[in-house]
């Protein structure tokens, strides 16, 4: 199925949750049943739209909505969906619905319901934005929604500090690219697709790559910028935790995939980033306490190793790893944080680790040929992280056990959609070869 050139389906998809948030804010605080119907209804509608977009996706025939936003400044209202985006929009819609139904009606207050839906809109925007200024706008909106969802002043400030650092660096990156486009073409533009065509000296290109990598290090995050994670995990209830680890963990790497890598993919600075990624994995293996911080940083390290892989297969595995990481962390986030002393089965953790294994294998195999030492460190960290025994597991409620099933289903779907993770260039090549 091909879409008309100026189809508004992506606008409808992005703004439906925001409209749902507005509607959910209208009922009084004690009208929890009505609010739940409204919020879950809009999240379900978003999921239906996202599924439609994803099923109808064709390389080269995907929907794109491009309108002038601020013509004199060259800023556009630009949404598009590529292969990775077509899977991510379904995941984001699914995750938001999962977050809304993960707790009972009375437990989900007005503020949480609205913020979850607003965060969904922001994540949709991040996955589909084609303009740098627009990407930053959705990044800021998502950051604010997640910050307010945290609810405790200390945790809000800490989370915002690290994530705003990433946002500020992203702003600098996009502002420099915007200026260079203006100088080199005579017209201002923040269109992300134009960034790879910029002409730069190699050392400047290297600096820009490292600037982009710094964004990921702050936002993803990588070791050692992880001090906000444990506090945030403990401050959040289950819906917020699902959204933070399953959704917001994609924001930093999305910036890397969409903005930085197409423009500076073969930069010399990639080696430094790979060292940091391997160290993050080692940190995941050697950290004295089994908390969220080493797990998230380690998994993100592996994703980055994949994205910086020399082969398109490795890059595709890295892109798939972004989603598998989100799936694995979402599975783990279903645990109740306040029952640490309870014992239960290790099944869920096993499932979560298994979910992340397929991209691990491909990424490490592809990296072995070019950077064996770093790969060895990464493997060591990964093995230590997986093999260290976990003694205490809180039990899962019946609702949470039920929610594991669709997660597993989505994992299978994400594995079957492997061709969608290929970078655009290699997919074009593959199509040409098939023809």
């Amino acid at each position, binding site marked *: 199925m091909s879409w008309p050139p100026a189809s508004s389906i992506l606008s409808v998809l992005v703004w439906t949750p925001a409209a749902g948030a507005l509607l959910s804010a209208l009922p009084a605080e004690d009208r929890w049943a009505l609010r739940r119907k409204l919020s879950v209804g809009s999240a379900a509608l978003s999921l239906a739209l996202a599924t439609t977009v994803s099923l109808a996706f064709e390389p080269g025939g995907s929907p794109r909505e491009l309108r002038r*936003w*601020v013509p004199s400044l060259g800023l556009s209202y630009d949404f598009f969906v590529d292969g990775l985006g077509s899977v991510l929009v379904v995941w984001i819609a699914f995750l938001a619905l999962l977050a809304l139904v993960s707790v009972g009606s009375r437990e989900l207050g007005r*503020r949480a319901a609205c913020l979850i839906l607003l965060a969904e809109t922001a994540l949709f925007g991040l996955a589909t934005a084609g303009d740098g200024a627009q990407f930053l706008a959705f990044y800021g909106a998502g950051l604010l929604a997640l*910050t307010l969802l945290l*609810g405790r002043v200390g945790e809000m*400030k800490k989370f915002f500090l690290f994530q705003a650092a990433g946002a500020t660096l992203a702003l600098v990156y996009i502002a*420099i690219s915007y200026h260079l486009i203006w100088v080199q073409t005579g017209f201002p533009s923040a269109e992300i697709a134009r960034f790879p065509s910029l002409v730069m000296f190699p050392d400047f290109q290297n600096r820009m790559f490292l600037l982009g990598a710094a964004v990921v290090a702050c936002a993803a995050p990588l070791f050692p910028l992880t001090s906000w994670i444990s506090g945030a995990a403990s401050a959040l209830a289950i819906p917020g935790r699902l959204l933070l680890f399953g959704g917001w963990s994609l924001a930093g790497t999305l910036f890397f995939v969409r903005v930085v890598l197409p423009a500076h993919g073969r930069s010399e600075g990639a080696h430094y980033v790979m060292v940091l990624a391997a160290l993050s994995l080692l940190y995941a293996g050697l950290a004295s306490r089994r908390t969220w911080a080493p797990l998230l940083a380690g998994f993100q390290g592996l994703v980055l190793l994949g994205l910086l892989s020399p082969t398109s297969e490795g890059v595709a595995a890295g892109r798939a790893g972004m989603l598998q990481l989100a799936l694995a962390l979402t599975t783990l986030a279903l645990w109740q944080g306040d029952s640490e002393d309870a014992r239960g089965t290790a099944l869920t953790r096993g499932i979560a680790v298994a979910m992340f294994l397929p991209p691990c294998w491909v990424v490490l195999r592809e990296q072995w040929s070019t950077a064996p030492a770093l790969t060895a460190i990464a493997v060591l960290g990964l093995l230590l992280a997986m093999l260290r025994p976990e003694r205490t597991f809180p039990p899962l409620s019946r609702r949470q056990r039920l929610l594991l099933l669709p997660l597993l289903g989505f994992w299978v779907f994400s594995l079957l959609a492997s061709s969608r993770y290929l970078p655009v260039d290699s997919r074009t090549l593959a199509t040409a070869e098939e023809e």
Partner: protein
Amino acid sequence: MRFVLLVPAGLPLLAAWVLSSRAASGWGRRMVAPVDALALLSIVWLWHAGVGSDRFSLFLAASVLGALTFAALTSEREVESLGRLHLGVSLSIAAASTSELSWSVAAILLFGILVRQGRERLLYFFVPGIAVLIGLALILAADSKVVGPVLLVAGLSTWWLVLSREVLRSDTSGLVTRMAASFSLLVAVSSVLLRISSARIPEGAALGAIHALSLGALALGTLGALGATRVTTFLTALALARAGLVLFALLGGAQGGGPSLMVLAASGVSLLLVAAALDETDAIDGVSNLGSGSRRLVLALGVLSACSFPPFPGSVALFPLASAVLGQSHAISLLVAVALHFLLAIGSMRVVARAWDPGGARTVGNGAGLAAIVLAIVATVALAIAPAGFVELARAAALAIL
């Protein structure tokens, strides 16, 4: 002064007269806001009719009249300070609309004397005032290209800072009126600086003065926002940081005029929203007791706009501003400004986090008021969601003084 601007500049004088003559009655107070709105509408008509053709003056006049109308709609009890504000706004429009430097400077100094209520700490006002007059004399008499403009720029900026600090810190009630006065004076001072930067300061020491002043104001404002424990100190710090950003945009040369005007107008909106939301609140810690959701929303919108956090009003101006400054090879200064802006965002989020802390007592019950909510919606739509028209207006205004 452009004669067509006599109407919008004269109507606030009429409102001031109404306030002074019928201050005791409700009728007088009710008349003020419509008169101010009429003045604002006259600016809109003049812009579209092309009469007078000085769009720079019209843009600045519309900014101060917008602030004045908002203050008149929200501060019904502040009759005396509202009257002073109306006189000040007329002077501000006069300062912005005349191309004669001496008239502009005179209007600004008179504005400061009118708005200032106390008589203590005269030395603080005396020093920058004298510096301004010496700078003006050097420019007019000796055609000074360095010392005169430097003294004028530094003196006017310090004059604004001293006055704003005193006006904003005098009391915790009537914050909107006081903030409107500070903003109106900032507009008047900025009009002079914009004209000077486009005509009289080519390179060298004078440019260095703008450099130092802008980064210094940004740094002081940022540190103030990070460490403030009182609401009035926080507001002064925010205003100072925004003034620093307006000055910083001037480093962008001819390309920096448009962004500078965008930042200036967005500053007015954000600072007035913060003032409206924090009115009658004493300490920053007390923000967590705000009971009204609309008030907390207006506060968040205002504070996050004040640090140009995307996607809030004012963030769109950052791209052309950064490009203009980079175009003049001030990359290091831009990096310093970005770092300071990041810290300002942290300082601003400190207040937003407190306001949205679910553990707050929520004992302060009154809301933000209809005017603040309407301004918040209008600002969000016009400056953040659909800013194309606003950007065009600012660019057209900046082109008028080149």
